[in-house]
């Protein structure tokens, strides 16, 4: 579970707060998508939840289902691979040097079975992001944070990886916070959509996605859901809910 109650988060030297009065709960096994205009504090929220940034007032609680300290996985906006490690070793790094087989398998799943011994500098940006995804999935976290993970991928590859993430999530039952700019993608992936106001971020709308799974980009139910949402809140993606 992720429990977020942030009163105030501001950066040094900035006049405006990045986040103010933001409350959010993500239950175990729940997939929540965060949407909002650029600069609305979505990445800041992930930084706070991940524990990398502790400079804020408020509380953030992470729980694993069985009460142990939860494992956190984070897919950053950039791939953040170690340039001196091969693809395989980059993935194995976060698992305490697990045996090679599981790492190989997850790399094959993301379509990089042929690049196990390549170095990150030899891969395209999209391939590097796939390695980062493999790394996060192999870590098998109780809480997964994703910051626009599919943004620089071509259509088929993005679809494949979305499918892979959903498959893993359904098996593992983790709590997922998923930041994206694409409303379609959010509808396909998430149980709930949470919309942010322009900075300082707060939640302006929190609605469940009542479409049966499996879903896919472009299917009728997704289109209709999106249409209805945007008809009701035409300025939703700019961070306003006035009807």
């Amino acid at each position, binding site marked *: 579970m992720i429990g977020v109650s942030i009163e105030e988060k501001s950066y040094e030297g900035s006049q405006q707060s990045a986040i103010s009065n933001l409350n959010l709960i993500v239950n175990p096994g729940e997939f929540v998508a965060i949407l909002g205009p650029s600069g609305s504090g979505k990445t800041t929220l992930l930084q706070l939840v*991940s*524990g*990398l940034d502790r400079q804020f007032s408020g509380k953030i609680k992470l729980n694993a289902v069985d009460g142990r300290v939860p*494992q*956190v*996985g*984070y897919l*950053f906006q*950039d791939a*953040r691979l*170690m*340039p*001196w*490690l091969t693809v395989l070793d980059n993935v194995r*790094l*976060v698992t*305490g040097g697990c045996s090679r087989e599981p790492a190989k398998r997850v790399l094959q799943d993301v379509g990089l079975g042929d690049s196990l011994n390549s*170095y*990150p*500098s*030899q891969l395209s940006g999209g391939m590097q992001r796939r390695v980062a995804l493999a*790394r996060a999935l192999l*870590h098998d976290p109780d809480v997964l944070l994703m910051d626009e993970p599919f943004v620089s991928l071509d259509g088929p590859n993005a679809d494949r990886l979305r499918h892979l993430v959903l498959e893993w999530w359904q098996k593992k039952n983790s709590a997922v916070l998923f930041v994206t700019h694409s409303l379609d993608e959010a509808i396909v992936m998430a149980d709930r959509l949470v919309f942010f106001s322009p900075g300082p971020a707060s939640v302006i709308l929190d609605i469940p996605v009542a479409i049966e799974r499996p879903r896919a980009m472009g299917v009728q139910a997704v289109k209709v859901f999106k249409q209805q949402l945007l008809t009701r809140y035409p300025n939703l993606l700019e961070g306003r809910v006035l009807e």
Partner: protein
Amino acid sequence: MRQRHLKALLRWLSIVGFLCLWQLVVWWFEPSMLPSPPEVFTRLLAQWDSGELPQQLWVTVLRVLGSFFSAILLGAFLGIAMGHLPWLDSLLDGVVTIALNIPALVVIILCFIWFGLNELSVISAVVINKAPSMIVIFREGARAIDFKLLEVARVFGLPWWRSFFQVYLPQLYPYFLAATRSGLALVWKIVLVVELLGCSDGVGFQLGVFFQYFDITGILAYTSAFVLLILSIEVLLIRPWEKSVMRWRG
């Protein structure tokens, strides 16, 4: 592959070319002050057989290694700390700049006067001469550390030793390599001067003796022995290390 062979060939060619040029100069000008390569080589073998050369070489090598490792440890420790702690950098920057600019000879003489003619003086003199430039190299390295990669280690809960050895330290390897290269090359030259001025053994001392007898063949024989040794360290240790550390740069 072919290009690599070509590179190796060119490297050998330059050395062989240098020796040929040396021989030609001796043949054409018959200078009284320059023995030919074979003469130097014969002398080298003779000195080696007598046991004199290996012994002096060993003494000097111990001094070089001792002062080199002391200098690199001190340089890494202070340089990395200065790179990460701005207040320490401000505090020590002036001293480092001064130390960088004091002539080696002055440090050597002062060490002998202050600490006496002993090994401590030898090592201190070399370390004081060499550490400042190592500090500068490691300070740059620490400043170039990518903390985003360390964030990855933190989020994924890597234990500290894994973060240190697999995420932090590899970012400094190029700087260790640079410090080793420039360090070894300079340290042995300084050690020879120190030995010339204040020791009763070692290659530097022996060179001083040859100088007094105008024994140029002896000087060149000892010099080539040492150059050969440093070259082998470069070829057998440093290059393979560089290759394994820098493989990812392709």
